[in-house]
């Protein structure tokens, strides 16, 4: 034991210090890679005349909302319309402010896009400092002159159509919805869905759970299973995790944000799609022209191609009756030609809604 101790005293401190430094360096370098992607150009080359659009995202790109903005910017870059750089996981207000100031000051972008929900004030502050650069951010607040535009995902049109399908398919007259949290963008989707259900099935009850987080598929699945236990035979997966529950219960389910058909081909009936490309095109126009302060929300509407319903899967468990398909297609046609405007209701939905009691506002 004595020998051990002596050797320890003589040799350990230096070795331990070296080890500690090594471990810290490794941890720091790996931790740094995990979050922020850095500047990754996805464009057609650096020296083109295409405007440089910078994406600045509060969440990792794997989050579906920012993922949709990123996908649209990437597709514009692939078409050669823009040069695109991005940074993600800028998840605090102060980091957002620093990052935006750094990019606006040093990279001279022609426009900056991103989401401001977690940092509304920071984004507005930096936008005011750089009035010549258009800022277009996902936001729950108003645009600010002269250069701060806002957008949001307005998916009430496909939500309404999906509700019509769900109402037509349920045999137990009970439909389960699992959403994130009662915030306006989720509320208007759920409320439009409920109004759609009412159109095809006024006897139905729509039960709505919120898991109070954007990411917890296991909790969402449990919430969906509670719906099934309460008699639901059609589910709407506003959040990830619900499709797995529908598959196990062998009932149809409606997906969200991207076409989720591949995740359960026999059970995913359709999905609500958000296409940010029209919004991106509007921002590109500002980038090559004058900055503006506008609400770009309407570029997410179905009639301009900003949102859509994924192809309806008629091979879904239980099938889809032809007359229901025809009704949905007819309504979709009316949305596209403007003769039907889906009502927007941003109030928090109830937890168990008898659709017969729901007031559908007159157009």
């Amino acid at each position, binding site marked *: 034991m004595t020998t051990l101790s002596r050797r320890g005293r003589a040799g350990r401190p230096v070795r331990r210090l070296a080890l500690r430094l090594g471990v810290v360096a490794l*941890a720091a370098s790996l931790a740094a890679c995990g979050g922020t992607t850095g500047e990754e150009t996805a464009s057609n080359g650096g020296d083109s005349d295409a405007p440089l659009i910078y994406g600045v995202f509060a969440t990792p790109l794997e989050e579906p909302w920012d993922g949709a903005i990123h996908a649209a910017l990437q597709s514009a870059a692939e078409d050669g319309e823009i040069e695109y750089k991005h940074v993600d996981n800028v998840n605090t207000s102060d980091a957002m402010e620093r990052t935006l100031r750094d990019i606006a000051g040093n990279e001279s972008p022609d426009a900056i896009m991103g989401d401001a929900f977690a940092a509304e004030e920071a984004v507005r502050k930096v936008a005011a400092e750089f009035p010549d650069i258009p800022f277009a951010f996902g936001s729950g607040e108003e645009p600010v002159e002269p250069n701060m535009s806002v957008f949001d995902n307005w998916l009430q049109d496909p939500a309404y159509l999906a509700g019509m399908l769900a109402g037509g398919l349920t045999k137990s007259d009970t439909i389960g919805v699992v959403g994130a949290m009662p915030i306006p963008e989720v509320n208007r989707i759920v409320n439009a869905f409920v109004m759609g259900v009412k159109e095809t099935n006024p006897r139905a009850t729509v039960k709505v759970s919120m898991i109070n987080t954007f990411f917890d598929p296991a909790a969402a699945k449990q919430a969906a299973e509670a719906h099934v236990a309460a008699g639901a035979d059609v589910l709407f997966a506003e959040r990830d995790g619900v499709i797995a529950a529908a598959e196990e219960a062998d009932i149809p389910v409606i997906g969200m944000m991207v076409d989720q058909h591949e995740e359960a081909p026999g059970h995913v009936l359709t999905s609500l799609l958000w296409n940010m490309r029209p919004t991106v095109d509007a921002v590109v126009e500002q980038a090559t022209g004058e900055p503006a302060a506008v609400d770009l929300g309407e570029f997410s509407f179905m009639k301009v191609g900003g949102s859509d319903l994924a192809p309806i899967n008629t091979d879904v468990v239980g099938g889809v009756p032809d007359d229901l398909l025809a009704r949905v297609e007819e309504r979709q046609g009316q949305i596209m030609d403007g003769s039907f405007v889906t009502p927007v209701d941003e109030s928090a939905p109830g937890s168990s809604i008898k659709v017969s009691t729901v007031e559908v506002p007159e157009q």
Partner: protein
Amino acid sequence: MSLNLLALLGAMLTIATPLIWAGVGELVVERTGVLNLGIEGTMYLGAFVGFLVALRTGSPWLGLLAAVASGVVAGVLMGLFAVTLGLNQHVSGLGLTLLLIAVCEFTFRMLYAGERPTLDTKFDVLLPGVEVLDQHWLTYVAFLVLAPGSWWVLRSTGAGYRLRAVGESFEAADVAGISVSGVRYAALMVGGAFMAVGGAFLTLSVLGSFTLDIINGRGWVCIALVIFARWRVWPAVCGALIFAGTDALQLQLAITPAFGDVPRELMLALPYLAVIVALAVWGRSVRYPGSYLKAHRRA
């Protein structure tokens, strides 16, 4: 108001499963006096590695095996920080969690940027269609093998004695010829494997897919459960069942018309309130293991 009691019980068992795996893992580690706050990251690693290997090989069994191996590696890493280097256990554990989550997210993006891969084959439930008992086999193992097994090992075997001896007084254990570092490393590796299985349960059994944030604080719940249980297995299992049962209950109540006017936030907080109440009632005057949070150094 119509509560579906059988569905409630079934959901309780499923929700409790990852908590029991990871909670027992944490308990084994803490009984040696090491607080492993790397639990959240280790569960995340298990969920990710299990999913990745199952996706690449098509076999959830290989995925589970890989998850176990990743948990052992995470345990060794924690051992390197907290045992070999004798660093502060809080900092080491939190650092490990941050590191592991970052490594998983980084790798996931490198491999599957913009995609949403799902497993073709995940573990099926046993006894499908039989209410309450239609559970995943990892749930059965958690309740019927893991909990009684670890209780017995800790209570009645030589390994259990050595483990507890190190946790109570590592000087005495050292004098008695027990390798303190060896026992702590072994506990970290076994505990890490259990935590990783808890994470992999979510990807390989429950969901068949991996998303960011998949563990979502379940590891931290386990830390509270272990303290609540005063480092004993069966109270930890009870704690997990109380938490899971309240969670399952709120999921049903939230969509029951009679409770329509109760704020959702209150419903969602119920399981956490239950744990806090349980801690307040039974968790007072807790006696920590004697060598808790202490690094062992021979003078």
